[in-house]
């Protein structure tokens, strides 16, 4: 587990300040996609080896949702970006 995360708003902080939601690559299915697809989306997760993108909430800091790209083997953090701003195509 990465122990230091560099928040784009707050700078380098320990992982204790964050809450991890999980996989940032999931696409929400259509409402009528069927029970199997929804079951998969809600409950089934991959356990990737290597690069992985996750949603992290800086819950004891700026309270922004971030996307953390990290390596599950080396624990290296490759990038941290603001999830909402990234969605809007902005910087930071």
């Amino acid at each position: 587990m990465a122990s230091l995360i560099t928040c784009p708003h707050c700078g380098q902080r320990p992982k204790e300040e964050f809450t991890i939601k999980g996989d940032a690559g999931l696409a929400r299915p259509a409402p009528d996609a069927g029970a199997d697809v929804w079951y998969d989306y809600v409950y089934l997760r991959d356990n990737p080896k290597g690069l992985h993108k996750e949603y992290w909430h800086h819950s004891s800091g700026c309270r922004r949702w971030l996307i953390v790209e990290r390596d599950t083997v080396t624990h290296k953090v490759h990038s941290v970006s603001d999830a909402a701003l990234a969605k809007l195509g902005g910087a930071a």
Partner: protein
Amino acid sequence: MPDLPTLRPALAGEPALDSTTIALQALPEGHLLQIMGATERAVVEAAIAAAGLEGSDVREAGYRQWYVVGDKQLSSKTLRELTSALPAGTFLSDQSHGRVRIRLSGPHATKLLSTGTAVDLHDAAFPEGRSAITLFGHLSVHLTRKSAAGFELIVLRSFAEALYEELHAHAA
């Protein structure tokens, strides 16, 4: 209304500490306003000046969020003036009743704070006027460096006693 609770400062009765190495004191429960919106600090400062609040301090409190703090309690008229001085899409939330300010200062203040928070408090990384939202132990705090050896902490009212007593125990 006999059952109406009377407002009492959250840290009334907590002893202040004042030694040559460290000083700890609860600050007056004046005003603490949270400003949020797609604007910038200079615009917030202009708005508080327009509302006659030149003595208030503006502090960064996260992305596009600021706290406006001061020792004076504000009238609802002043709050309305400030609200209307803010640009459209910028909002004010009066948190005066919900958050408490604590002052910690002295040559040992940095060392004491670094026992509870992971924020780098070196002068170069955390200069005067800089603020950070972080944890002190398990408590969420907003921390500001006011001077070389002086800090202010803002904490949710219901956690104020716990934080104050922890700081007091560490400092004494």
